[in-house]
């Protein structure tokens, strides 16, 4: 390795360390400022909570185990709706790709449903399906499903016509064109879509829990807001942050594995 390359690598490494350090400092500074502001009375701790109050609340709920129950319920609902979206989204996109008249008929409806603010559907869904987990999952699915179908179908339909022609010169049938060309060509779109969807599912589940739940982080937030108990709310939000980071990272990992395998 040349001297210049070494210097370059060293510089890059130093830059990366600095960035990580700054990120950490920003977070720590925010926590300290928040805590100080609450203690010094700049803000009303009863309304704005504070890091130590959140930690205390967290400790209490870990001790009585209730936090695990609420988190597990929200996570479970999120995964379930995510799974449903992936299966039905890809399935529907496949049907649309296989039967062009079907997609020609349905496309305007999908576009309208997709541009609708989906949270508007939630109250109606809950009236129809009752105050239960089923309603919450259907709400979450309704938030992301239309966009998923459109997005994946568009990617299928955009498959390079020259590559399709190539498959036909080999005598490839529709199924082979699908498995050897269309699906692998759309893999990236599907995974990017999953990244967006996992976040959307969480949003949908929280909306559903606001309206219909007797447990879950969304329920925790809405219940405590009614009794002006801000610490559990702030804590729930932080847990949601952590959950969404972890979920996003899982999909990221999936993407990397898919890239390696292909």
């Amino acid at each position, binding site marked *: 390795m040349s001297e210049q390359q070494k210097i370059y690598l060293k510089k890059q490494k130093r830059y990366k360390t600095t960035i990580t350090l700054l990120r950490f400092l920003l977070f720590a500074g925010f926590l300290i400022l928040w805590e100080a502001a609450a203690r010094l009375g700049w803000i009303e701790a009863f309304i704005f909570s504070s890091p130590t109050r959140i930690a205390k609340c967290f400790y209490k709920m870990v001790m009585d185990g209730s936090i695990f129950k609420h988190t597990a319920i929200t996570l479970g609902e999120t995964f379930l709706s995510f799974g449903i979206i992936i299966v039905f989204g890809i399935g529907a996109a496949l049907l649309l790709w296989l039967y062009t008249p079907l997609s020609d008929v349905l496309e305007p409806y999908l576009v309208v449903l997709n541009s609708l603010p989906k949270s508007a559907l939630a109250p109606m869904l809950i009236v129809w399906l009752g105050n239960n987990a089923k309603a919450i999952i259907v709400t979450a699915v309704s938030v992301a499903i239309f966009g998923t179908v459109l997005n994946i179908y568009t990617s299928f339909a955009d498959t*390079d016509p*020259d*590559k399709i*022609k*190539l*498959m*036909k*010169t*080999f*005598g*490839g049938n529709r199924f*082979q064109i699908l498995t*050897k*060309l269309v699906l*692998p*060509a759309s*893999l990236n779109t599907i995974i990017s879509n999953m990244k967006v969807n996992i976040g959307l599912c969480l949003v949908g589940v929280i909306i559903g829990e606001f309206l219909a739940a007797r447990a879950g982080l969304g329920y925790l937030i809405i219940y405590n807001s009614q009794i002006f108990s801000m610490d559990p709310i702030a804590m729930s939000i932080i847990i949601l942050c952590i959950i969404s980071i972890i979920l996003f990272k899982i999909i990221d990992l999936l993407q990397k594995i898919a890239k390696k395998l*292909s």
Partner: protein
Amino acid sequence: MNPILSVKNVNYSYHTQDGETPALSNISFDIMPGSFTCIVGPSGCGKSTLLSLISGLLAPDEGEIYIKGSPAADSAMHIGYMLQKDSLFEWRSVYKNVLLGLETRKSCTPEKKELVNQMLDTYGLGNFKNVKPSQLSGGMRQRAAIIRTLALEPDILLLDEPFSALDYQTRLEVSDDIYRILKEQDKTAILVTHDISEAIAMGDRVIVLSARPGHINKIIDINFDSLKEDRTPFSARSSPEFPDYFNMIWKELVQ
């Protein structure tokens, strides 16, 4: 000897919302086994369309195409069609790319794999089997696409401007290579090109098409008596007959 391919009075038009585009009109010719035919013609005159008709991807509006005596639509297995674009799949390694045709035809036997490996080595891609196509140069991509087609061991090879993406020097080298392989394996080839010199250098026969809708202006037999046995595209280019053929074809094209 019977022709391996005969095209009889073929017409073809494309239909779109904006109207009808007649692409080919009254095309007829025969191709003998083992011959090398080049098709030249102005851009958009229907050269690619003609190859698609021969390969059975399109069906003629009128007329017939026979391969070894049976209709083209049923004889696709005899044909290897190298499209104008290399269309390598970015997500597959070079090796998996050249196996694509065999996989699709469900004939990916160990013997065929051995053949593919040999070809990869012969054409300088042996060390690039496991890389993705994006890491290949234009010339290497083209060679990979040719191997992908040859792997099918077709009787008739259709080549649609296979060298157009290459720089001039690589183009001369690759066309020499391809010519040699095809002659060694006694394949029948039809090559479409824009390049008059290339057509003369490689072809036993040059079919000159008119502007759209393409019809046959002239079929010119190419003979290099001065070269006899050691005819290669490269030697042909410097033979005394070459300029005469060039002028003849040039006149047919611009008339």
